[in-house]
């Protein structure tokens, strides 16, 4: 029996096994296909073998990042959730995944990363709190830039800026996509019969964050909430396949540093304090040396010759 494959994912919150769309897709597929995975839930993408999350470490093919590639690899290892699908259903899967990527994903990127209220109050806040020091100062803004760039390219508009007009267009497409998904799902438990397939994993991955993450600007959320069958679909999968995540909700509040979170950060806090103090001392010392308040006596013969020859930069040599 081969050793279980290792999967690196963003950690979870709000009752989700992961906060990231691609990670959720892969985690869901692995559960559906019964793939034994050793899951590393981290909040530092630099610790992943590929530098991004999700990442699957394989023995034969190195590390894979894209959900589609990860799913294909799992299928090759005989963990196939699409085994029972007919040829037409397989084709439908491809089509509906395209629909998700083209019509829903841009709006999701917008609502989580570009909408200023949501980004500042929720997304950036979460990443800044969860990514370890000092990357938490660097990564959230960088990710924001990357997501905005991605959105611009997918829409073919290099000058795209957050605004009412673009928001309306994106949300209109997303609303239509959600409605179409709801119509296609109907009253079934999963998209193709009674057992879940890769399409269910993709849909879950895209919808679950929208359902669970509490956003101040929640137009898209409201529409999803009004589609009962989709909401039920997501909740169903969470209950059946990720029952342990539900316990996390009470601890995570978005803006309050309670005793609970202080306790979690305690070791980091001490380390941060020491590092800050060292840094400050180093800065002061460097400044002092550069301006000549403090001089370091050197005893090299060349130095003595030079200082005798012309003025030093240090004015305060003779006080």
């Amino acid at each position, binding site marked *: 029996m081969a050793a279980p494959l290792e999967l690196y994912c963003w950690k979870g919150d709000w009752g989700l096994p992961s906060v990231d769309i691609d990670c959720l897709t892969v985690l869901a597929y692995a559960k559906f296909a019964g793939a034994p995975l050793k899951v590393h839930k981290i909040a530092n993408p630099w610790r992943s073998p590929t530098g991004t999350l999700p990442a699957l470490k394989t023995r034969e093919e190195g590390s894979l990042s894209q959900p589609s590639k990860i799913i294909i690899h799992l299928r090759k290892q005989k963990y196939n959730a699409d085994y029972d699908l007919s040829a037409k259903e397989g084709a439908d899967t*491809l089509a*509906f995944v*395209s*629909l998700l990527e083209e019509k829903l994903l841009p709006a999701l990127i917008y609502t989580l990363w570009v909408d200023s209220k949501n980004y500042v109050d929720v997304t950036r806040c979460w990443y800044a709190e969860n990514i370890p020091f000092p990357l938490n100062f660097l990564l959230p803004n960088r990710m924001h830039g990357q997501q905005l760039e991605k959105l611009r390219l997918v829409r073919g508009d290099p000058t795209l800026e957050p605004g009412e*007009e673009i928001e309306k267009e994106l949300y209109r497409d997303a609303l239509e996509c959600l409605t*179409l*998904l709801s119509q*296609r799902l109907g009253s079934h438990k999963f998209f193709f019969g009674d057992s879940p397939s890769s399409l269910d994993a993709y849909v879950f991955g895209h919808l679950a964050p929208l359902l669970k993450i509490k956003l101040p600007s929640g137009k898209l959320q409201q529409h999803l909430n009004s589609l009962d069958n989709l909401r039920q679909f997501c909740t169903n999968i969470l209950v059946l396949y990720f029952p342990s995540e539900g316990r996390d909700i009470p601890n995570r509040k978005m803006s309050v540093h309670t005793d609970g979170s202080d306790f979690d950060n305690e070791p980091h806090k001490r380390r941060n304090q020491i590092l800050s103090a060292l840094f400050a001392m180093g800065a002061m010392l460097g400044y002092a040396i550069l301006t000549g308040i403090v001089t370091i006596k050197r005893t090299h013969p060349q130095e003595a010759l030079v200082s005798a020859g012309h003025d030093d930069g240090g004015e305060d040599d003779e006080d």
Partner: protein
Amino acid sequence: MSLAAEAFVSQIAAAEPWPENATLYQPLKEDQILLSDCASSLAVQAYLRMCGLPVQVRCRANAEYMSPSGKVPFIHVGNQVISELGPIVQFTKAKGHSLSDGLDDVQRAEMKAYMELVNNMLLTAELYIQWCDDNTAAEWEIRRKMSAVGWAGKSLEQVYEDVSQCCQALSQRLGTQPYFFNKQPTELDALVFGHIFTILTTRLTNDELADRIKAYSNLLAFCRRIEQSYFDEQDKDGQSGSSRFSKGPSLI
């Protein structure tokens, strides 16, 4: 098109019937036309013919600049200008012509999904191949789009694989039916025809792509059927002023 403009256009559209002098503008056919633009233009022409709406085709070197959104093709109907298949379908619907009214909700969802599949895979593949073929046309723009959608790292071989996969999906969905939703063509049929026909009939440095598509005989038959039903009667008309759609050899 912005939402407000769309609503406005729909209202005006509903008021007037389709005029006789409707015109479709596309870029010139020789070197300048992008594979993807050619396919989009053909798709729109096929759609309009399926609706029984007459349209003349004009090629203009500066078609992109004439278009309100910068995208081609666009149609000039009465005193309105609308570009791209999606808005054009909405526009004709407002005038009372629609091919997808008879579909139920599930079928409409499937239709939209398959149209996105074509846009996602075939359109992007056409852009990629065009970029490989002649590195001149809007190269850096295409390259940036490729990296956004994760295609920058793809080799040509992988792109061919993706196209095969897309065609396989389309072929499986089509099955033995004459059109994707059985007896009547819809905008999906027009879109698929536009892309597949363009890929098959455009001379590229490498025929591998066309060969891969030819492996799906029902798709070939589907293209021939549409060509025969909707484009062949043009041969009899004396429309000499406007260029006809056929770029090179036909499939028949």
